[in-house]
């Protein structure tokens, strides 16, 4: 099939038939994941590398189990890492069929052992894009267009790894790339603040969260703070994702941990390196027992992300909080 999520016409139809009213969308993460994510879905992952990744939602997905997902993201770190590691640890319970991406690693915290493991064993279909290419694909989806032009992929091999088409521009005569829209089945987005209707405020870079949410048929939002509609709309231009694009709103403080969330916490490098360290040896033929034990203790052994956080050294979370305060000083 050419379209890996919804086709442009299907995406339009999904939105037309959706209840777009302003209603209370608060629910538990367990409810949100079970109601809005299905086996076989194309899942759009928000954030950028380890910033505002939807980690709490990934934990809940693993707890519930999923099959044959397509993951779509520009640059991601711990989001696909934990979902992919679950496939290494429990292939019967969790599986990813396909990855559409620009980058999967952790910048200062190193490469992704899960990515190497899955790719080098051909366990997932791969489709490479650049950050701008796939961001523009989400944007085309959000704009209701079947494609968007871009110069990004011209000249290299990325365009031959994916569904890009090159044509001669009918206005200039020069080659231009056309990137097919991405309309995921479901978007997973973590934000700083939301109201119960789903209006979201994102601090720091928007990454491509607005585009992914608007492009997707369904959107699950987790937020650091659930606040009143009046507070959110006192500065309407701060709203990055409007309520009609959102289906579930869940308040999950530290929901992007051990990644960072502007104004709330910086990266927890120790926690990231610790997790990556559980996977790296498996590539070299080591036992997956330590990884399985981690999932048993922190995901399968608890009922919620809050319970996972409660098992961590408190200092680790306070350190992440203190380090972020250096980058943005604010009165409480």
């Amino acid at each position, binding site marked *: 099939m050419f379209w890996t999520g919804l086709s442009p016409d299907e995406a339009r139809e999904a939105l037309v038939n959706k209840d777009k009213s302003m209603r209370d969308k608060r629910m538990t993460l367990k409810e949100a994941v079970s109601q809005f994510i299905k086996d076989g879905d194309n899942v759009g992952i928000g954030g950028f590398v380890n910033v505002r990744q939807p980690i709490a939602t990934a934990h809940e997905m693993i707890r519930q189990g999923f099959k044959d997902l397509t993951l779509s993201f520009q640059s991601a770190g711990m989001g696909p890492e934990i979902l992919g590691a679950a496939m290494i640890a429990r292939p019967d319970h969790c599986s990813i069929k396909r990855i559409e991406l620009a980058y999967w690693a952790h910048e200062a915290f190193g490469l992704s052992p899960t990515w190497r493991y899955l*790719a080098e064993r051909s366990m997932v279909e791969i489709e490479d894009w650049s950050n701008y290419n796939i961001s523009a694909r989400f944007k085309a989806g959000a704009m209701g267009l079947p494609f968007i032009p871009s110069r990004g992929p011209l000249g290299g091999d990325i365009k031959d790894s994916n569904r890009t088409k090159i044509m001669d521009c009918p206005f200039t005569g020069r080659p231009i790339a056309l990137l097919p829209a991405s309309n995921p089945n479901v978007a997973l987005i973590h934000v700083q603040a939301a109201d119960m209707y789903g209006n979201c405020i994102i601090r*720091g870079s928007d990454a491509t969260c607005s585009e992914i949410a608007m492009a997707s048929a369904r959107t699950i939002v987790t937020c650091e703070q659930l606040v009143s509609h009046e507070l959110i709309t006192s500065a309407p231009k701060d709203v990055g994702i409007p309520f009609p694009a959102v289906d579930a709103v869940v308040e999950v403080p530290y929901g992007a941990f051990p990644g960072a969330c502007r104004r709330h916490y910086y990266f927890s490098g120790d926690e990231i390196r610790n997790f990556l360290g559980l996977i790296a040896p498996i590539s070299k033929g080591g036992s997956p027992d330590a990884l399985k034990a981690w999932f048993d203790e922190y995901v399968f052994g608890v009922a919620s992300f809050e319970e996972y956080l409660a098992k961590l050294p408190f200092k680790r979370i306070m350190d992440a909080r203190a380090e972020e305060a250096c980058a943005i000083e604010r009165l409480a």
Partner: protein
Amino acid sequence: MTASTDYTAQEIIVVAGSKVLEDNKIVFVGTGLPMVASLLAIRTHAPGLIPVFEAGAVGPPLKCGLPLSVGDSKTFTGASYLQGLNAAFELTQRGFADYGFIGGAEVDMYGNLNSTMIGDFPDGYQNPKVRLPGSGGAADMAASCERTILIVPHDKKKFSEKLTYVTSPGHLDGSPNARFNAGMQGKGPYRVITTKGVFDFEEQSKRMRIIHTFPGETVDSIKAATGFELLVAPDVSEFAPPTVEEIRLIREEIDPTGAFVKRA
């Protein structure tokens, strides 16, 4: 300006990278050593340098220290513009980025970079021998910044006659107007900084050319460590070693935890 006698390969890369950056220009900064080099430039000869990061920050003063990510909170504080990835790359496609500063795992003589896979492309694309992280924003910077500066650790296998995969396009096959004919913008690779020297691209052939050898290297030693035939500039010179002050800035002020610049 006392010359340092105690510096690492990554440190001289940072110093050389910083010196390539011109004051008051806009530089689109990739993750890792380009961030350190840009901060060093701002702290030394280029206080008016305007960094752009792909997560969206334009022109942040970077007063909170070295970001660990190009989407880091430290890049946001005090920025002159901050939207998302699309906005940053659209600025670049429009022509706002004078320089792009990127790395890769492999490079060829035309400055094309690979950061996607080692193996066989296209036949072995779904079965890579080594899977690398992927382009990130590097391919976009390579396609649309006006000029690019490349950082690649010097190694015979990494300076390769033929790349498995071209992630970030440089001068393509070196033919006249190759970039323009492919629909791209910008003049392409401008400098390459390696662990052994600094390189430009000869104007007609667009082939990589030695312009500076790092202390301890010679034209011959660099040629021997390169998997393709390197050109040599008529006026090739030795690159001055980093100063004690530059090394102090890197170690004590810019990257005190060794997040990107390894001490070993």
